[in-house]
């Protein structure tokens, strides 16, 4: 039995050493990756200056065309991430401050995402490689149940979120395999139109006060960032469009743009505009808040 206990102890040591080594390796790979996702780009950049940045979910990622702003003299980047919630948008803004970004205007999508105070597990995972390096990320997640395991068990975070930051993503990051996340200054156009449009059903949606949105407002105020909170278009056949009116009751400062583009031809799906729709919409937003600068 003594021999077996020694054998098990050696096996356990192999497991621990392997976990530590893999953790170091994976983290080293993610620390040098800046072209796979908007989060690694953000973490591995510093001192950027933007006139305008966009934050939100796919309804930002697919809807805002930074080129329109850039062509008019406003340095702009779309940091919207499909599936992200306001919790992740807030963390991205905090990271921008930590990375010493200088931002003049933040355009934040606040519509379907204030139906809940929940987070996105898929997007949360993308912050995890940097948890040991970033105090901001640690502070943001210190109250979640899994925090001790994520922070103190080597390699646990890569196993727990293997679909997003596991071997496959680490390998692709190591070989610098490009994605389209950062092309077009973060704008990801939808080219394929799904027909017929299936109406979005918001009958169970109701806007609620959102802690992350309140955090974003506070951060913007502290850092002299002009916050522009807006809703974004959704197709006219959506069930319970009154949801957008109710948003105003919770947060009166949010500006309504859900009707800025209405023609079905501009929609790839009911909740997402196609490229043409995105261009139309971006022009509407630009004209509502900005004037062209003299550019060559």
């Amino acid at each position, binding site marked *: *039995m003594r021999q077996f206990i020694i054998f098990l102890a050696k096996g356990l040591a192999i497991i621990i050493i392997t976990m530590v080594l893999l953790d170091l390796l994976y983290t080293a790979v993610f620390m040098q990756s800046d072209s796979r996702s908007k989060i690694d780009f953000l973490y591995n950049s510093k001192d950027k200056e933007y006139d305008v940045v966009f934050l939100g979910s796919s309804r930002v990622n697919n809807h805002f065309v930074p080129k329109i702003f850039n062509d008019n003299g406003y340095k702009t980047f779309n940091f919207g991430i499909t599936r992200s919630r306001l919790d992740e948008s807030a963390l991205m803004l905090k990271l921008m401050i930590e990375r010493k970004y200088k931002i003049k205007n933040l355009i934040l999508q606040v519509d379907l995402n204030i139906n809940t105070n929940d987070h996105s597990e898929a997007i949360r995972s993308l912050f995890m490689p940097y948890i040991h390096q970033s105090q901001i990320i640690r502070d943001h997640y210190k109250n979640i149940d899994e925090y001790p395991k994520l922070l103190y068990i080597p390699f646990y975070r890569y196993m727990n979120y293997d679909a997003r930051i596991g071997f496959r993503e680490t390998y692709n990051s190591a070989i610098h395999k490009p994605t389209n996340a950062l092309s077009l200054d973060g704008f990801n156009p939808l080219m394929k139109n799904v027909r017929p449009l299936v109406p979005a059903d918001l009958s169970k949606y109701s806007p609620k006060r959102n802690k992350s949105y309140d955090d974003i407002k506070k951060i913007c105020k502290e850092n002299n960032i002009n916050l522009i909170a807006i809703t974004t278009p959704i197709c006219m056949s959506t069930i319970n469009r009154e949801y957008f009116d109710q948003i105003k009751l919770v947060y009166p400062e949010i500006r309504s743009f859900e009707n800025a583009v209405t023609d079905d031809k501009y929609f790839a799906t009911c909740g997402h505009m196609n490229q043409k729709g995105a261009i139309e919409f971006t022009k509407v937003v630009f004209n509502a808040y900005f004037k062209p600068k003299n550019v060559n």
Partner: protein
Amino acid sequence: MFFNSLHFAIFLPIVFIMYWFVGHKSKINQNYILILASYYFYSCWDWRFLFLLVFSTLLDYVSAMKIEQSKTQSERKLWLWICISINLGFLGIFKYYNFFAASFAELVQSFGMTASPILLKLILPVGISFYTFHGLSYIIDIYYGRIKSEKNFVDYSLFVSYFPLLVAGPIERATHLLPQIKVRRKFNFNKAKEGIYQIVWGLVKKVVIADSCAIYANEIFDNYQNANSLSLVLGAIYFAFQIYGDFSGYSDIALGTSKLFGIDLLKNFNYPYFSRDIAEFWRKWHISLSSWFRDYLYIPLGGSKGNKLFQVRNTFIIFLVSGFWHGANMTYVAWGFINAVYFLPLLLLNRNRKNVDDFTLGINFESVRTLLNILMTFSITCFAWIFFRSKTITDAISYIRRMFENLDFSSQYFKIERYNHELITLLVVFILVEWNNRSKIEPISGKYSWLKLGLCIAAILALGVFSDYKEFIYFQF
């Protein structure tokens, strides 16, 4: 509590310590510890079904003694059939009632009459197919006088409920397991070490191979209408490795766990995808079930005695029943039928026992032929798996039709943000490892075992699927 869960990782060491440090002095203590652990293990799924397990155990235990005490043959037969009927009755109600009720209603409706079957909302008790067959083999062996009935209820209960094999086999035989339970087990370092190696290799098969393949196979089978020919071919291959990695991985963990307690279980898989014909495949795939059907169904039906027509009938019965054993769905029956069809030429030409010997490959024509036979057997096996995996027979036929009609063999990108060909490298490495170690139980033991153990652990940690957790497939059977 699954073998690849944290719960089991805590449970197993506790039982191990209790078994070897508290109960090691007598066989009685060892058995008490194992039976308590087994009942706890089973109750973790659904404690209500523990009563069913205990009832089934009690029924077989009493029936066996009654058969043995019977003075006349008719009395023996009566007790045998009471026991078989009740056991199969439970299995039938829990597993097959809804299928038969719905099928009957469909049949009635096809004659223009109306029928609204009463369907039961029953949860299938985990492992019921396994422990029912377990008990049946015991009672049939008693009836035929192959073994004596077990008088000690704890020992018998442990034979039925022993936790490593309780929920998904292997289906043990009283002649093999009971003698081991009847004596005090002494700790054997080499056996325990072998058990650890087998557990680790089982985990590699489950979390690295099976669960990775499952991601792709599920995507392809669930959206086969949008998949091209290459994806559909790969989908069948991925599923073949998913079910192999899943079930043989489970079996390895079960056998390895049991070795930690000094008990050997029956081997359930013997590198089936390296078979040279379908008969050899069935001697190497789910061995405990195949041999169960051979001994308790095929041979009592007459087996290979009698004329060819008789043998063909028996072959079809055994394959169809084997298919139906997996679940109440016509897809499983179709899978069994296809395998029977594969088997038929071998049976008619008396070649079903042609490939029973081991083989080695060299640089000669014979080796090329062997390799081609292996590839052919694997291909037809994959074809049959399409029926096993599809939701309906119509889906399976549409899947196959599209595979042959689409004829687009390009790389395809799925909604799950992965390419269809991504797993091929992993599978090739896995096949090479299995091929090079096919004479052993697992590939870790032998030279450089620490290095191989480290690589396996690294593979589990780095390549394993943890976030998209999947149950063992055979738990549903």
